[in-house]
């Protein structure tokens, strides 16, 4: 069905794909496994015509093809569902499918598409309302739209990039059913992931990539998680976190009956209450878009609460400014590192004093104390292992892991009482991930309260002392991590409320 041979693609300073070859058959689900930055997505972007390879050949159904743009890819029966959905959010589902579609009428094309969509939805078990606007849909529904979009264009080879990262365990099961159905209809499915369990569950064969190269391709029946992990990381992996016993102290954060609106003005938080004590990590689990972002923003002063109270370290800080809250000892490791966490064009030094620039020792009266800033920067760059040629280097030139280290250095060096960490290891490689998790645990052990928001259930399970699950702006239940079962958390993520609330 598909052969990619000796694909090479370089970006400045990086060889993203180094003579990569891949072979996928009709009627198979082929997993592409690798760490972040291993080159999986680059390879698929080449197949889909978004990138041009420096060299290499692609064959579809035995014929050599030149894919110069997504249009070529579509013409050769290739469809792709990107990790970050490529949908026009204000438009309807049908309009999204009709976009750029050949063979639709000039006048009112969405109408014709609506009819075709109904049929496809039924055939593959992908229910969705063609007239709904995309922004109104849940992540799972949006993913269905993406798959339908590809199928409507006659995709025989379907690429899915990290498709389960936005789904509940139940939705994931649904998706796998659809994929198996497609396989039976003779489609080839390429499934990009870094989750071993998914590979074992659904894939027929797996190709493992590491640092831009293929490590090997093998049938899943002939392998196991352990050897796949070794291939993926290149060494023995032990997910060992030195985590002492939890010794909860006084209350670091009390949230009472919190209500808030989303950017679109619809309720995003509907009566959220919980407590984080000093010396414990409370993990917030949940599918993206169930109010986690808003919760973090309200706590850190970036969004107004409509109702309810937030008490930080004994002080009522409801609807205080972000600066007041930060000054009160709240560290915030933001979800959007590049957009919020750093000022990309400014130096590392300048970035390290963000949020602290207005207070001594970095500032006296209206003047910055540049010498103190230099000294501080030098110290924490070493302490937190930030790899940089100089403290004056613009932050945007750092790698993802180093950017996150910079943010942690800044946030944790001020001896906070509460750390709010949103997706702290998202998109980082194994080394940086491990280091950052250790840092968070160190904070907890030194008596800091940590609120951890993450979509990575494994991370939540490994780090948290207690786990709260959010669904549609409410807490479905709070369980102790040692007793938590993944099935139970999955049910809560899908909206099932836990019977008895556990007192904290």
């Amino acid at each position, binding site marked *: 069905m598909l052969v990619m041979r000796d694909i090479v693609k370089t*970006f*400045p300073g990086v060889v993203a794909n180094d003579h990569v070859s891949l072979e996928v058959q009709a009627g198979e689900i082929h997993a592409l496994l690798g760490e972040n930055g291993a080159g999986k997505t680059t390879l698929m*972007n080449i197949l*889909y015509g*978004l*990138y041009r390879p420096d060299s290499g050949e692609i064959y579809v159904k035995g014929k050599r093809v030149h894919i110069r*743009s*997504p*249009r*070529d890819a*579509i013409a050769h029966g290739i469809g*792709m569902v*990107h990790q970050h959905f*490529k*949908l*026009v*959010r*204000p*438009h309807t589902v049908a*309009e*999204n499918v*009709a*976009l*750029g*579609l050949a063979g*639709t*009428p*000039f*006048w*009112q*094309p*969405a109408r014709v598409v609506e009819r075709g969509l109904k049929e496809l939805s039924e055939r593959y078990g992908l229910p969705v309302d063609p007239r709904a606007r995309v922004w109104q849909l849940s992540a799972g529904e949006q993913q269905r739209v993406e798959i339908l*979009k590809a199928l409507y264009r006659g995709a025989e080879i379907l690429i899915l990039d990290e498709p389960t990262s936005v789904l509940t365990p139940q939705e994931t099961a649904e998706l796998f059913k659809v994929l198996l159905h497609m396989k039976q209809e003779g489609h080839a499915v390429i499934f990009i992931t870094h989750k071993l369990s998914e590979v074992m569950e659904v894939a027929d064969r797996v190709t493992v990539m590491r640092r831009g190269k293929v490590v090997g391709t093998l049938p899943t029946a002939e392998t196991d998680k352990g050897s796949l992990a070794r291939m993926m990381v290149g060494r023995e992996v032990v997910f060992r976190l030195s985590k002492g016993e939890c010794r909860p102290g006084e209350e670091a954060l009390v949230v009472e009956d919190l209500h808030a609106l989303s950017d679109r003005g619809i309720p995003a938080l509907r009566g959220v209450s919980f407590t984080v004590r000093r010396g414990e990590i409370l993990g917030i689990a949940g599918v993206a878009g169930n109010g986690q972002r808003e919760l973090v923003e309200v706590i850190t002063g970036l969004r107004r609460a409509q109702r309810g109270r937030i008490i930080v370290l004994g002080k009522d800080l409801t609807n205080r400014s972000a600066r007041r809250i930060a000054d009160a000892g709240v560290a915030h490791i933001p979800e959007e590192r590049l957009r919020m966490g750093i000022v990309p064009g400014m130096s590392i030094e300048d970035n390290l004093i963000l949020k602290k620039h207005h207070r001594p020792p970095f500032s006296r009266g209206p003047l910055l104390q540049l010498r103190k800033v230099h000294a501080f920067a030098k110290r924490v760059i070493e302490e937190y292992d930030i790899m940089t040629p100089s403290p004056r280097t613009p932050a945007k030139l750092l790698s993802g892991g180093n950017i996150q280290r910079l943010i942690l250095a800044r946030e944790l060096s001020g001896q906070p009482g509460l750390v709010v960490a949103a997706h702290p290891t998202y998109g980082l490689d194994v080394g940086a991930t491990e280091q950052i998790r250790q840092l968070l645990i160190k904070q907890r052990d030194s008596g800091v309260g940590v609120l951890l928001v993450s979509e990575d259930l494994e991370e939540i399970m490994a780090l948290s002392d207690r786990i709260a699950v959010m669904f549609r702006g409410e807490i479905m239940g709070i369980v102790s991590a040692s007793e938590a079962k993944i099935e139970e958390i999955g049910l809560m993520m899908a909206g099932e409320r836990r019977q008895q609330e556990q007192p904290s």
Partner: protein
Amino acid sequence: MDWQSWLIGIVGRALAFGTPLLWGTLGEIYAERAGVVNLGVEGMMVLGAFSAFAVAQSTGHPGLGILVAALVGGGAALIHAFLTVTLRANQYVSGLALTMFGLGLAGLLGRGWEGIPLKQPLPSVTVPGLSKIPLLGPMLFEDQSILTYIGLVLAVVLWLLLYRTRWGIVLRSVGESPATADALGVNVFLVRYLAVILGGVLAGVAGGYLSVEYRPSWTEGMTAGMGWIVIALTIFAGWDPLQAIWGSLFFGALYHLSYRLQAWLPPELLKLMPYAFAILVLAIAGLSGRRRGAPGALGVPYTRGEK
């Protein structure tokens, strides 16, 4: 003077004054719907005004003047498209440059043409039959420019095109989320070029209307900030061609009133009215949250994900 002739005068003249605003706004709406802000409207309009006048005066054909104005406007917009779409330059600065360049070039070339009345202006039309309707007839169908009517029809056509056709979906998608359109094989660059050029063509006609129809003569800087009013109207109209009609009429009426009220207020103060109202109107748009209609990728150059 009774209220009827007042009303007839105001609405009729508001239409006439609003026509260049309507043409310009329709063009800017399309450019911005594709995600490109063009602050060069003033420059494109003034180039259109001069070229239309020069051609109409030397050939005796005002229609040809308008046609050339359209081409010149489109050509000027092409510069903006090249800089902002291909070279991904800052859209604001490029637009400002286009305005400076346009005002300068028109002023330079127009030196010898200043102050001469146009021999053969574009004739105004009176719609037979319809003009006999009491009140509405003289208000809407008497002594108007053909470009006024074309502009109104164009607004409807552009609205239909935007919301009811395949092209409309493509255009709106390119402005909302170019990466999505690109991933489906839409040529984002081509769409943006075409939209920006269309914007220039319409701005050119708007300028031409001023110099061969409304005030059949050429004076330096005769657009007097209309291009900026157009930018404000685009926002006020919520990027909707039909809404642009009302906005243009309102500002047309304001311009007209700034002459009408001279018996009571100093003319200089009246002249600043449209500009003050433009700020006011945008403040209202801000309060009422109309800005939310802004295309998602407005002002952002598109780069395919290659690092």
